[in-house]
């Protein structure tokens, strides 16, 4: 459904300072799949999400949606066509709504931009149905301003918005990281329900446990580079890349005290990762199991492992 091939983004902060936010990232999202992009803050997750949403132009690489390279189409009509199918929800719900308008303006805009021929009453009914399906009472949220609602309610409104468009792919960029613990799980489970309905999702998070909870596949990013990817179960039970290992070890466990942690077996790729001679050049993804890939760097000649 969505294929990302060799995607890179370099920001020119000034004429001299450049930031390689995303470096040669490739992955795909299949229909009905939830793929998590996991990485610490600054690892380029949002930049990837924004490029998929065509909010940011890639420096190089291709993004294929339904076999069409969307980075090449520029016209507003094709962009609109794309947004019927690919939608996003962002991290900070309070900044996603324009503070000076009522929250239901987001629905009015959809009506105007995408369904101008639909009668107002029919549209209103659809809006209410969508709100109900994400667990909101239409009367409670319509007419409110965003500072009068909770973050969880706002994110639900945005999910309802994507449902109204019958989007096929949702880019969810840390959509629950700013919510209270009590509402997080509800929104998370709502996303699970959406998947049941066939919605695909790119789930961006810095939280490993969230990624584990929800996704079919995970992609672990480090400084804009993919370091490990594959089936969620496989990657979480047998992480191979030293960075993924250290990430997983950094998660406190409820069942084991830190001084009882068993020593972990050495990864066979660790040596290559930390060998300074091997630190040159761009990493390439190597398959090490069925749907399990890790980044390796090609060593310079003569320093063969």
């Amino acid at each position, binding site marked *: 459904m969505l294929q990302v091939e060799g995607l890179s983004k370099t920001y020119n902060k000034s004429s001299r300072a450049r930031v390689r936010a995303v470096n040669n990232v490739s992955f795909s999202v299949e229909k009905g799949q939830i793929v998590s992009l996991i990485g610490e803050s600054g690892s380029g997750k949002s930049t990837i999400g*924004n490029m998929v*949403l065509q*909010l940011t132009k890639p420096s190089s690489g291709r993004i294929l949606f339904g076999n069409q390279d969307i980075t090449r189409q520029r016209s*507003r009509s094709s*962009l*609109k066509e794309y*947004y019927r199918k690919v*939608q*996003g929800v*962002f*991290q*900070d*719900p309070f*900044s*996603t*709504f*324009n*503070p*000076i308008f*009522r929250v239901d303006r*987001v629905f009015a*805009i*959809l009506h105007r*931009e*995408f369904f101008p021929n639909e009668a107002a009453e029919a549209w209103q009914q659809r809006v209410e149905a969508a709100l109900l399906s994400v667990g909101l009472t239409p009367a409670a949220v319509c007419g409110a*301003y965003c500072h009068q609602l909770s973050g969880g309610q706002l994110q639900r409104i*945005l999910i309802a918005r994507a449902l109204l468009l019958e989007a096929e792919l949702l880019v969810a960029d840390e959509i629950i990281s700013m919510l209270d613990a009590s509402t997080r799980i509800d929104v998370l489970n709502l996303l699970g329900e959406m998947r049941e309905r066939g919605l695909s999702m790119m789930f961006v998070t810095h939280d490993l446990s969230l990624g584990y909870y929800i996704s079919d596949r995970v992609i672990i990013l480090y400084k804009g580079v993919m370091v490990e990817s594959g089936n969620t179960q496989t990657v979480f039970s047998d992480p191979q890349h030293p960075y993924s290992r250290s990430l997983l070890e950094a998660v406190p466990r409820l069942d084991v005290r830190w001084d009882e942690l068993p020593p972990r077996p050495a990864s066979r790729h660790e040596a290559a990762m930390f060998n300074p001679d091997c630190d040159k050049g761009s990493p390439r993804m190597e398959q090490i199991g069925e749907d399990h890939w890790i980044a390796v760097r090609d060593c310079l000649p003569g320093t063969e492992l």
Partner: protein
Amino acid sequence: MRLKDNDILHYALRNRKLRIGLAIIAFFMLVMLAGPLFARWEARERAGLYPSAPPNSTNWMGTTKMKEDIFSQFIFGTQSTFLIGFLAGCIGTTIGLSIGFFAGYVGGWFDELLMMLTNILLVIPSIALLIILAAYLPYRGVQIQSVIIGCTAWPWVARAVRSQTLSLKQRGFVSLARISGVSPLRIIFEDIAPNMLSYVVMVFILQFGGAILYAVALDFIGLGPTRGISLGLMMQEAFQNNALQVGYWWWFIPSGLSITLIVSGLFFLNTGLDEVFNPKLRDQ
């Protein structure tokens, strides 16, 4: 929002600077609107029997050396001075806002081009440009003066608005509008601009006051309107005729005092509004 509106109104009504500013401007509005009912002569008409007469029952503010009625000049001068402030303020604000919005929102080479233009105009001393432009036009009315001033006063507006736009552009609601297929023009005018409304009002007031001062400066160096009257022209004529040295105080005080009052009134209005819109500046 209703609550918030009331909140702002509440502070607006309580703010002393805002009240002073409004009172001064309201007074001059009254002068402009009701004054013509009492002005018995045209600004350049021979009104009195004597030149340079002090205030008396016929000529309430006295007469000039050319026997013109200073009260009438004051009324019509205030009118045209406000007209210049308004026209030039509108022109400067509109150009500055448009350039700032588009440069900030569109970005890229478009932004660089517009900002280059803006910076060039910003470093050229605009008074020099005004002198050159004004000197080339054989006769100038108040409107032409306004256009000249408005067209040279916008660069700082453009820069300030651009940087505000750049920061608003990063906000989530702009991204949401973009993935809702909203056109850039609509995003600028329906999402970004309304969030800068208070700022736009203040920019306009500053442009208004700045234009009045520029017009006075132009009048004073002899590049004012070649016909008609303005507060700046009244002052210039008074000084040219040594009213100060000879002690014809009635000739220069109405215009000088009015200019000072109008500009300080606008200044109070602006700081007052700033305090109302920006809670951090409220000193209560």
